[in-house]
């Protein structure tokens, strides 16, 4: 992350999912927080997320999945990022990620195992994830500083 640059987040709703309302609110919340929000909207493929992130040099991708197919749709996004050379990009995912009412701990682990950095249960307030983002970005920078000071 460029120290003086406003951080950029690519956000969208993955798969054949058309739930548009949370997505609109997330965009608004990111804007309000002074974060550059690149909203690729609903029904976005993994490819579209990656392309948008590469194009905008994004710091993070926020994937939403509401409609229940998240488990199938979200698998493999980290690999695609690695392939595209944005290995370290922060991947957050949130919404109603799986089908049915399941224990959140299990669902969270499922998505962390898929390579997401953070996963959020239904009903998460945008501010919570924004706070996490700032923190993750600081940590990332610090660890990069360490790396560069070792150079």
């Amino acid at each position, binding site marked *: 992350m460029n120290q003086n640059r406003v951080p950029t987040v690519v956000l969208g709703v993955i*798969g*054949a*999912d*058309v739930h*548009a*309302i949370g997505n*609109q*609110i997330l965009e*608004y919340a990111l804007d309000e927080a002074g974060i550059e929000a690149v909203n690729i*909207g*609903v*029904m976005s493929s993994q490819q579209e997320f990656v392309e948008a992130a590469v194009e905008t040099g994004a710091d993070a991708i926020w994937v939403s999945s509401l*409609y*229940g*197919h998240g*488990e*199938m749709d979200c698998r493999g996004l980290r690999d695609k990022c690695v392939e595209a050379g944005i290995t370290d990009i922060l991947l957050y995912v949130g919404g*109603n990620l*799986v*089908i*049915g*009412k*399941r224990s959140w701990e299990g669902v969270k682990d499922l998505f962390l195992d898929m390579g997401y950095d953070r996963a959020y249960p*239904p*009903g998460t307030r945008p501010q919570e994830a924004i706070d996490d983002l700032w923190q993750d970005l600081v940590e990332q920078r610090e660890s990069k500083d360490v790396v560069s000071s070792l150079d």
Partner: protein
Amino acid sequence: MKKPTNYKIPEDDFLAMRPEVLAGWPTGQRVDLAEALEYHSSLAAEKNMVNRLQQALKKGETLTQPRAGVALPEELKELLTFLHQEGEADVLPTTIDSYTRQNQYREADRGIEESRHEERSMLNGFPAVNHGVEVCRDVIESIEVPLQVRHGTPDSRLLAEITLAGGFSDFEGGPISYNIPYAKKVSLEKTLRDWQYVDRLVGLYQERGIDINREPFGPLTGTLIPPSTSHAVAILEALLAAEQGVKYLSLGCSQNGNMVQDIAAIDTLEELAEKYLSSEGYSDITISTVFHQWMGGFPQDEAKAYAVISWGAATAALSGATKVIVKTPHEAMGIPTKEANADGLKATKQVVNMMKEQSFDQGEKLDREKQMIRQEVAQILSRVKEIGEGDWCQGVIRSFEAGILDIPFAPSRYNSGRVLPARDNNGAVRYLDSGELPFDSEIMEFHDNKLAERGEFEEREASFQMVIDDIYAIGKGMLIGRPRE
């Protein structure tokens, strides 16, 4: 290709189009209209939706219907039987999965396989196209009440062919209501044409003596939709369907939460639809009404979800809707278990049963709401007709382009998205920004005043923050999204 216009597809043209549609997936080959008609005739009258709705209209019943669908047929039968027997559902749905809705039959096949393998449904609905006619019939035969296909498919031609041949007698959706809220890049030209096909298919069944019900999807994006917006869409879809020979229509909208406004909505929907249909020359159409319990974000807490469900049931009963579509205590979390689904149904049934003999004083407040809805709908529809130069299809296309029709929060790029709704100080949904809706100054002032009143009370300007607060409100235990202290 010619631009779609609102004319009845000649039977020959229609039959000429069918092979291509049926070739969309291997299961399409099995469809045979004559045989399907015979199959419907062989079914008991109780399994026909039109029959059941007519009965309800006559007796003044409010029927309960859940949403439900899973990947595999055995599980679907078990689920539906449970919802009928344990949940006391009067009529049943089969909700189609989201891959099928996008005509992604290959993904749906993968979902079926994964579901078999994982022994739980990996699809959010029933992929009827992949399963085909025989499997549908097997489902129909095992259930005692009529079944409706509920989906959200912009191009549902093949789905309609297969499910109607499969014995379903009710098909939800429409060119606007299953496009603008359900798609991003699909043009209205395409959906208008595709739904002419579906409606014509229903008309064909109808002309050959098999009653099939059609139901435009009333709630649209389900979130703070002012009644005149959903009414305009419902009436347009009714007109388009009627042209193709559809005779039985259920028109609906979703609960907004202010009881007076909600009752006014159901009352005027029936009244206006009948008026427009007959003034456009469709005089032998039977209208029933559908009320959807709150379609926006639900409270996570189950007790609170029950409260929202029950309150929706009460409004449905008081409005005299023919059917109420039921939510479940799991709504905010995920697709419900069959038990949670039955619980929503039972709570609804209890309220409907307790309310069915009751009625209210209807006075000035209700009259005013009804009057507003009538005027707004009239102004929208007359502009649609005008801009379409008398053709409803062209009117719809051009109106969406111009923002004369505009559905709040919709994902479609064919929707202008300028309209913003918000609640007034009594919780009724008003136009905070009416965008390009063709309202006269009297209507504009009415809405402005209502929102100014709230703004004053809350000591803030009516703004997008108010809209967001309203979107979250019911999920957080309130009707109106008051500013946080």
